[in-house]
């Protein structure tokens, strides 16, 4: 890809352009959002021209790292359950991957409880109940059409009573532009101040992934009554087994939010939960 410019001692913008165009095209075929591919190429150009741009360093330096197991134990020492809220648009895999996270925590001898706070979608409560039964995990549920913020609150109280270490809160899928639903989510987060707000996104998503993440963050900020609202802490990227080498959504999502990909879902059974392998992502992107 970069052969055309190799060997020149001085790089000028015009020399770079064909190569950068090729790079941008390649990133887009791998499902990196157009806007993100453009920004990446800009920062590559800037660094090659000797200028410095903030954006490229952002991925490596400002993405915080979170150690859930450590934080769970810290919460336990303070005598309160560690609360994780799963949020995201419809059908991305929130409930299924919540169950996988529950299984993973179980493997680390942590007592988990599920909270069925998708009180809207048909079958959502039964879906979670099925996972809870299979994994033999207690579940807190109040059926349908209840205020999910209140259900979550009661679930957390129940967890404190029964000595659960972690509460995993399932929420209904919602479109990022749907104001009433986003307001309800902001309320759930505000009322319960969870330890971790996990954005669930699917690796299949195209350009919309950028909009989903930035709007979820923006709405959580704008629609919360708190002056210091809680935003998205981390990303769970699902359906990684369905995309071959089109791994670009991982890049777009991290780039736009500055949040780490904490888990990758790569199948439909409980063991299909992995850590992101950054090297293999980069390799797939540039192959």
């Amino acid at each position, binding site marked *: 890809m970069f052969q055309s410019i190799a060997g020149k001692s001085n790089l000028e913008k015009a020399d770079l352009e064909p190569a950068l165009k090729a790079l941008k095209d390649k990133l887009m075929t791998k499902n990196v959002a157009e806007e993100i591919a453009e920004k990446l190429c800009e920062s590559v150009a800037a660094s090659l021209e000797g200028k410095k741009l903030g954006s490229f360093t952002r991925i490596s330096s400002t993405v915080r790292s979170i150690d859930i197991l450590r934080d769970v134990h810290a919460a336990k020492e303070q005598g309160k359950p560690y609360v994780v809220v799963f949020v995201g648009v419809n*059908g991305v895999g929130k409930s299924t991957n919540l169950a996988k996270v529950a299984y993973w925590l179980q493997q680390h001898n942590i007592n988990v409880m599920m909270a069925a706070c998708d009180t809207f979608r048909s079958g959502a409560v039964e*879906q979670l109940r099925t996972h809870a039964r299979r994994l033999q995990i207690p579940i807190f549920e109040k059926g349908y059409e209840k205020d999910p913020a209140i259900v979550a609150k009661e679930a957390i109280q129940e967890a404190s009573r029964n000595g659960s270490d972690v509460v995993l809160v399932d929420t209904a899928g919602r479109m990022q*532009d749907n104001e009433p639903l986003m307001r309800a989510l902001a309320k759930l987060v505000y009322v319960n101040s969870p330890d971790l707000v996990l954005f669930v996104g699917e690796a*299949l998503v195209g350009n*919309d992934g950028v909009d989903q993440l930035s709007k979820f963050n923006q709405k959580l900020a704008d629609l919360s009554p708190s002056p210091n609202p809680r935003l998205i802490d981390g990303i769970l990227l699902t*359906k990684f087994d369905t995309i071959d080498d089109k791994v670009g*959504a991982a890049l777009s999502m991290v780039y736009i939010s500055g949040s780490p990909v904490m888990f990758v879902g790569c199948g439909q059974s409980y063991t299909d939960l992995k850590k992101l392998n950054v090297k293999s992502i980069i390799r797939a992107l540039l192959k």
Partner: protein
Amino acid sequence: MVLQQLGGSITRALQQMSNATIIDEKVLNECLNEITRALLQSDVQFKLVRDMQTNIKKIVNLDDLAAGHNKRNIIQKAIFNELCKILDPGKPAFAPKKGKPSVVMFVGLQGSGKTTTCTKYAFYHQKKGWKPALVCADTFRAGAFDQLKQNATKAKIPFYGSYMESDPVKIAVEGVERFKKENCDLIIVDTSGRHKQEAALFEEMRQVSEATKPDLVIFVMDSSIGQAAFDQAQAFKQSVAVGAVIITKMDGHAKGGGALSAVAATKSPVIFIGTGEHMDEFEIFDVKPFVSRLLGMGDWSGFMDK
């Protein structure tokens, strides 16, 4: 509707070209670049976009155009035809007939909206006087039967499924037989979500299709899908006889280009779009008027290659 954003960008690019006094290579390239960008931002498959760009350039060979020709018109016509090639497979989908039993099978990737859309499709026809019925052949996903059952109950549509049976083929066959006996004229079979990387799942889908002999297989696709859309859609088409596409979640922000790539891959038209989670948030989709609208219409009608 979101796809209109794409239409807007394309129309703007063409407008800009129309404003130029001389149409040379540079003006044409700028116009094509704008359109390409709009298509890529909407998640139309990269290769489709590139091929389209090459084709247009080939058709619109600026040097060959005799002085008297109206370059602008030739360019616009080429763009229109290429877009039509992506959006319009050229043959209508199988249309079930009221009063005559038809089996319609829904397939698609995990979470694309099959189960929700099955009910919408049934409800839509029920309102028009049909006798639809729903069969839950998803024995895999937790809560799948409850979901279909609750939806069907809300819409007062008969349903069939089982909590115990794990073989989707068996349930599908039983359900279809039962509703044929009950004189239902639209028997809708919901199936599990699946993806091309897992061969066993595709084999299962093939078996359900073979056993129930659907008159129509509908591929359900989420409007937010990116570059993986084409390959997945093509793989579905190669396993079962996909005859129509429904694009869901059009109430979101996605521009729907990935789903349009599915049209190209399955060579099947989009027949409905889903615009919300509720039963009635469902619209009929017609390709030709859509393409015309996409491009600002009117003057375009004369361009259709017939």
